[in-house]
């Protein structure tokens, strides 16, 4: 199994550092090449890091409620930057207030995110899905070639 590269970070002006440090350790232990950008990461920094490292996925965290403002437009910017087949995950407390999760999920799916997670997501499950999603996108890419 080849090693997948993932870019990890907390988007916007969000400085919640704890979960980010734990995710870094978890995905590294699970065998991923983790590029962790830490907290307060802009969309451009995510894109630049993904291009530089030839990453398979960008995993975005947002815990402070302003995720909606920070996350919109990223899919389009990825495509413009040539990252057409990158997996985009987002998780945390993504909007202001306690809202119905399925509504949040739809909102972020429309924004182009492949999967949306709650803050208490089961990381084993996330890892499984991440491998599947990366592999299926790669096979699409290889078929095209």
């Amino acid at each position: 199994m080849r090693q997948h590269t993932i870019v990890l970070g907390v988007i916007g002006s969000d400085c919640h550092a704890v979960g980010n440090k734990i995710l870094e350790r978890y995905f590294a232990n699970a065998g991923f090449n983790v590029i962790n950008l830490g907290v307060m990461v802009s969309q451009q920094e995510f894109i630049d890091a993904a291009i530089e490292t030839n990453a398979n996925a960008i995993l975005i965290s947002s815990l402070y409620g302003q995720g909606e403002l920070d996350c919109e437009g990223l899919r389009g910017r990825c495509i413009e930057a040539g990252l057409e087949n990158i997996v985009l995950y987002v998780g945390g407390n993504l909007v202001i207030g306690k809202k119905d999760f399925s509504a949040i999920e739809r909102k972020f799916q429309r924004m182009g995110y492949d999967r949306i997670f709650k803050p208490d997501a089961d990381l084993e499950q996330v890892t499984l899905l991440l491998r599947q999603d990366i592999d299926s996108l790669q096979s699409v890419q290889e078929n095209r070639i």
Partner: protein
Amino acid sequence: MVVVSEKIDMTEFQKERKEVLETWSTGSMIDLAEGIEFQKNLSESKRFSLVMKNAQENGLLLLQPRAGVALVDEHIKLLSRLENYCDLLPTTIDAYTRQNRYQDAQRGIERSVKSGQSMLNGFPAVNHGLEACRRVVQAVHKPLEVRHGTPDARLLAEITLAGGFTAFEGGGISYNIPYAKKVPLETSIRHWQYVDRLVGFYQEERITINREPFGPLSGTLIPPFISHAVAILEGLLALEQGVVSLTLGYGQLGNLIQDVAAIRSLRELADEYFQRFGYTNYELTTVLHQWMGGFPEKETQAYSVIAWGGAVAALSGATKVIIKTPHEASGIPTCEANIQGLEATRQITNMLKDQYLPDSRELSIETEIIKQEVRAVLDSVFDLGQGNIAAGAVRAFQAGVIDVPFSPSIYNKGKMLSIRDNVGAIRVLEKAEVPLPESVYKYHADKIQQRACAEGRQPCFQMVVDDIYAISKGRLVGRPR
């Protein structure tokens, strides 16, 4: 940048002030003399320092929520409802303003108008400006504090203090290390010396503004001595600039004895150090923050965490408690959830009004341990500073003498590792460069060993992770699954 520890000269201050006020358009409205006049005309019931002082003298515990939304009218509605349930009002500032990203805050305001709901996690006071702040202050009947997390809060302080807010949270360390990634400590300390000097200037005009260093830091397994050392340093830095009213903070950890010992030792140590540095004219109070880490998602369980925080605040003799809400696991609460948190807290603090935790051997040992730890760290800071407290603090972080677990800042070593013991108190697993006395370090090691034996596993990073998630999963100590 070389940071000095002395009262900022007024000519230098005025020069810097001119530049600060130019950083966003609303700054041009600020006239210090006019701001002082506005503050003088506020009723005593809105004077934060006075309400705190009276509460302390009468042994009362005051309740304060966190709250802030994007738009002025909505913010006024929110506070007007909350003030029926709390003693002190907040205005929580949004995260863009905290990073001085006023353009982004503007976009947040516009989007909030369009969508009919707040898209920001707080009140963008700089963008709204002076008159809006005054509308808020005049619409409510209780003291208002600015609560945020801003490494450079100079403009925010200018606008909100001239706007009639009577308390201002934060400090050069506590609003950098947990809230920023690459702001040098000497920069944030200098910017907070400016804020304190501004507060000192109001004080010279006999207007007391309460200052509150942010106690809980990263809110993640912080041993009391670390947050105490920071709180006392920020207290000294504030006193140096002429601040008089100080409320030192601490975030509840979960073990009753350790939490009560923490609040007691915080008061006693602060008095000790303030007086050692020659300060006698200050008003000192303490605040306990209900549990600042991850919360259970189920609201019934969250109420339990909230009530326990209220109980500890009451039993420890703190003057103020900052409350959490049953929505904590989901982020920003609604007004209703905030009221529920306040009501749950009020019930328990009223019930415990006339009770206190009697002295015991365990309580005095814990109190003494914290004092030894804080003295060891602060002595080292003062040695490093050679008479310059600010420089000592900067060097202490460089050397890892003060080390905050789980901080996002590159100016924090992040080598010290802490963990719960078998009764849930926070202990130091690896001290790294923190100058803990050997006997104290051994005390920590013995306590951790008791847990390791009980769980049949060696202390490790997984144990730390288990502790971080324990409360959100319905327990205090992160036992193996």
